[in-house]
């Protein structure tokens, strides 16, 4: 076990954690996640809103594309012997620029299609959300390309992986999108989007589309969603992706090839046990809905 390699793996895990949290918050602000179906449905149910809705593509493919663009530019600049930090920054900045263009066009397209239900296009709501979307998107892309660069960087003459940088960025972008879409979205969809319903239950089909459109003061907007999800859903998404990246390499760095596979299986069994205890806790604490 080489301490330097272990340190690099830990740094990759930290970068992945930040990437995960930023990705989830960015997609929650833009409603580019499963709960977008409710934002889309709301005007048809008579609930006009000020949310951003840029869900033209799912999170995994979208983040695969942004990270791929950012990774490719960073790869080209690195081959031109530009300083790595600058190459990653420029790559992430170009990826963010495309993300912002996509945000504007897809939001406008979606909202305009709802004009038949009297849903207005609020330009101020769009403009005020662009900054946070760009900011969180940049952080996520910087961290994905950064950790992919760490993977391909030769440590003691050998890189951690054989895949090229742009492909690793695409793969981690798709994986992060899948995780963000599966975990953080739940906090947005089942809680933030339906805050005017009592805490502690799923959303019945009959209530779908009746989303919370009012905040503490005035109309609820996408920044409020980001603020809400940053307190729980976003950080947990980050921890999930951070653990995935860290464990994927830590097991083989510490235990070797075969030992690493056994360690991976042990971690999976531990997660199964944790999940069973969690289910048991929820059943005991919350109880049944009907006897």
């Amino acid at each position, binding site marked *: 076990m080489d301490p330097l390699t272990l340190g690099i793996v830990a740094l990759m895990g930290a970068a992945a954690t930040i990437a995960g949290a930023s990705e989830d918050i960015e997609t929650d602000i833009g409603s580019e996640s*499963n*709960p*977008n179906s409710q934002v889309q449905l709301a005007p048809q149910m008579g609930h006009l809103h000020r949310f951003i809705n840029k869900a033209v593509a*799912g*999170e*995994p493919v979208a983040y695969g594309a942004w990270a791929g663009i950012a990774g490719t530019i960073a790869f080209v600049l690195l081959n031109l012997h530009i300083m790595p930090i600058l190459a990653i920054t420029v790559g992430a900045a170009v990826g963010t620029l495309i993300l912002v263009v996509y945000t504007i066009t897809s939001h406008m397209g979606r909202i305009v299609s709802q004009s038949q239900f009297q849903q207005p296009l609020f330009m101020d709501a769009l403009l005020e959300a662009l900054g946070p979307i760009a900011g969180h998107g940049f952080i996520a892309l910087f961290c994905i390309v950064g950790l992919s660069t760490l993977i391909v960087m030769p440590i003691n003459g050998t890189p951690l*992986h*054989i*895949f*090229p940088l742009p*492909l*690793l960025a*695409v*793969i981690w972008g*798709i*994986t992060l999108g*899948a*995780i963000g*879409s*599966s*975990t*953080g*979205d*739940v906090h947005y*969809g*089942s*809680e933030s989007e339906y805050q005017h319903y009592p*805490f*502690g*239950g*799923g*959303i*019945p*089909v009959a*209530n*779908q589309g009746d989303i919370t459109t009012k905040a503490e003061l005035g109309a609820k907007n996408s920044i409020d969603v980001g603020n809400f999800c940053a307190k*729980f*859903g976003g950080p*947990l*998404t980050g921890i*999930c992706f951070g*653990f*995935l990246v860290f464990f*994927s390499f830590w097991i083989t760095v510490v235990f070797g090839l075969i030992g*690493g*596979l056994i360690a*991976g299986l042990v971690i*999976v069994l531990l997660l199964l046990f*944790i*999940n*069973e205890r*969690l*289910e048991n*806790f*929820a*059943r005991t604490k*919350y109880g*049944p*809905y009907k*006897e």
Partner: protein
Amino acid sequence: MDPITLLLLIMIGGILIGGGVHFIPVGGAPAAMATATGVGTGTAMLAAGAGLSGLVTAASMSGQPFYIIALGGAVGAMLMIALTMVTANLIYVFGAGIVPSSAKVEIDPITGRNQEKYVTPGTEGHGIPTVCFVSGLLGGLLGGAGGGLVYYAISEGFKGLNGFTPEIAGGLVAIVAVGIFFINSVIASYNIGGTIEGFHDPKFKRIGSGIISCGIASLVMGAFVYLLTIGVLPIGGVA
């Protein structure tokens, strides 16, 4: 690698990927609103996320026998799916105050716990109960192992070709493997037709037609991979 072995490995890998997708509990968008049981995303997307994580782990085992590479893929995919399901359940339980429960079975066949009483009225269940979790792990195991096999077959097929540096060959192999993984997971997801809770879901019975379709599609793709390995060879054959 001889063409028959190449085709067989890609076909078996494709069947494992297609079969594995049927095990993964996905509730789609309704699951994100705690209206349906399973992970709140699309079938193909979750399978691809898990499979690609497995592919990264499998590729880090390069140079090992095929079963080690397949096991590496399985471990990577299982890690991804297990971490995702635990994190999603943490949000269901602590972020929304919801008990993970299935609407497809009255009693969890693994824990023996009653499910019906814990389902919010008006919903199709919510969260990821133990039976779905175990099914998801099996899905990760099969999908990841299938992805690993496909990767092994293609990398062996491309081995020793003229005019390719290891970096270019590695990238090409990975791109083709990712493509085959995506095609199989999308075919399986069409066969499922929306959402599935896992092996206890009545839709799981469709797995037969799903794996046959994936086997045929993988065979065709295997033929393309073989043509590609011949096509990129300069006159004179293998170096």
